[in-house]
């Protein structure tokens, strides 16, 4: 019942996002017809392009058309690539999906141990070091980190390729080796976020009476931290995993540009540079949908960790 309510609650969110995206682009200055026609085009030519693209029709007509299209999975035609937006996005989806998935794995694999150790050693050197890394990771711009990693591991050590993307069908190592650095770049901000919340959530749990009970049973450090404490700290951690996914989505744009990966992020940049409105609208809408969906899954996962949560 609760789950159903939560799923239904997504609809208005998506509608508002769609409206805002469409309107913002509609009312923003800059004319795609001008970009498309080129420097030397005559006013008549520009007018003809506008007519062909339907840019001269009123706001409400275009909004309605676009909305009904989206409902059918049709995000319109790209003005520039000469293909449908849906097709473009599908074609670019896989690299981005792999990239963000691996970034998430890296982030969790880094953040959880760091946060747990920091909480356990609170106030001591390991805590200071871990949280120092978190602040660093959080405040370093994504492209700086990306170039730093490329310089270190690709140019200097020569262990990994500099740029590009290989699909999994090209073999596991080519696929992974191209993905490791971008995923690390993308995952670091996310990891910093998660590590800080993990630390504070664990710190609070470790002071609880039931942790003293756990010690009084003769449990070892790891059973206490992982078996008893982590599950109680899971809800704030999961929440930040959901909310922080926004940093992955925005990081994808920069990361794919730095590492030259033909994914959704690059598509977005290309579309923005060319004022390819249908593509921008489609991408923003889909990414918002993904974000909302991940946060829904996070909400629904609370029951797994806290038996007091009832749906």
């Amino acid at each position, binding site marked *: 019942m609760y789950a159903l309510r939560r799923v239904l609650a997504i609809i208005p969110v998506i509608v508002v996002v769609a409206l805002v995206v469409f309107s913002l682009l509609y009312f923003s200055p800059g004319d795609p017809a001008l970009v498309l026609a080129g420097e030397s085009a005559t006013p008549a030519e520009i007018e003809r392009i506008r007519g062909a693209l339907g840019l001269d029709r009123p706001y409400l007509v275009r909004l309605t058309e676009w909305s009904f299209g989206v409902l059918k999975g049709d995000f319109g035609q790209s003005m520039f690539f000469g293909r449908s937006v849906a097709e473009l996005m599908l074609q670019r989806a896989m690299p981005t999906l792999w990239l963000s998935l691996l970034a998430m794995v890296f982030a969790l694999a880094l953040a959880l141990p760091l946060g747990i150790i920091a909480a356990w050693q609170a106030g001591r050197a390991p805590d200071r070091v871990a949280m120092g890394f978190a602040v660093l990771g959080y405040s370093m711009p994504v492209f700086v980190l990306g170039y730093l990693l490329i310089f270190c591991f690709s140019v200097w050590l020569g262990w990994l390729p500099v740029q590009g993307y290989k699909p999994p069908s090209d073999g596991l190592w080519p696929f992974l080796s191209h993905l490791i650095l971008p995923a690390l770049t993308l995952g670091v901000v996310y990891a910093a976020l998660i590590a800080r919340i993990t630390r504070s959530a664990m710190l609070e749990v470790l002071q609880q009476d*039931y942790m003293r009970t756990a*010690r009084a*049973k*003769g449990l070892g450090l790891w*059973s206490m931290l992982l078996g008893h404490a982590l*599950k*109680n700290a899971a809800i704030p951690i999961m929440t930040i995993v959901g909310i922080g996914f926004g940093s992955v989505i925005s990081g994808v744009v920069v990361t794919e540009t730095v590492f030259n990966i033909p994914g959704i992020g690059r598509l977005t940049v290309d579309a923005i540079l060319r004022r390819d409105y249908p593509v921008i609208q489609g991408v923003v809408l889909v990414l918002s949908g993904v974000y909302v969906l991940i946060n829904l899954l996070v909400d629904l996962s609370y029951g797994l*960790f806290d038996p007091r949560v009832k749906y």
Partner: protein
Amino acid sequence: MALLEIETLSTAFTSRQGEVLAVDRLSLQVERGETLAIVGESGCGKSVTALSTMRLLPEPHGRITGGHIRFEGRDLAGLSEADMRKVRGRDIAMIFQEPMTSLNPALTIQRQIGETVRLHMKLNKSDVRARSLEMLELVQFPEAERRLTQYPHELSGGMRQRVMIAIALACDPKLLIADEPTTALDVTIQAQILEILRDLSARLGMATLLITHDLGVVAEMAARVVVMYAGRMVEQGAVADVLRHPRHPYTVGLLAAVPKLGSSLNEGPRQSLAEIPGTVPLVRSAQTSCAFAPRCPLAVDQCRRELPPAVEVGPSHVSACWRTKDVPAMAAKLREGAL
């Protein structure tokens, strides 16, 4: 050799108010199978004594600064954390005052009982379950089978304390430390829990260190009692001797503060005794005079200058008071005055 021999134990805390000596050269023994009670006002160091024995102090800001804790001859005070883990839960188990917060809210009852069994008794999965069930039945847990898969929030305070007892007794400990196991419960539940504890410690032949500030509980449960004041033992002996013929003015005050057996000494923290003006002092370093002197009607100059040694005042009855000879007369006067 006694099962547990605490010898001149000192435990200190470093806190915002500076250094505090919560336990000051305390000595006591628990024999195999016996129940020893520790009584005293709030803040006199009862819990700290228990936590020191289990080595559960919040190190490094709370730590043992001196003395020995010999369990079956082995000094726990100097044991490594790894060795201590094998003692906790298996040789010495502990139940805490707050049943509402002492169980892990995210884990099932079965898991919380079972993990001790698995850890110390090395049983396989189905034996662990059987043992968990057996323990719940031992503490008279209704519908034990069904409730194995429940979580703490589905249980009342009394039921949770039963689970705590089941966890504590699951590995047949030789010593159970019960730190005010019934203080947080209402009266009828208190009686049930005490009944279960008394019955099981007799049945399992287990020694119990029972911490309480309820003299009624002492009279009902324990064979011997240690009276603590400001981190030190002030009187010790058989329950009948100490409660009927107290030989320390503080014990007399404690007894006078109880209108009838069964009511508790201090409802609130640090509440002063009606019969003894003043409160427990904060002790910062090893005491060099009697800490009770400022509140004691019998206090003389010597009490304020010299630390009274523990002296034998009867068969296994010990009192640490310079004026212990005058205590019976004082107690009699107090009784007359009260009548």
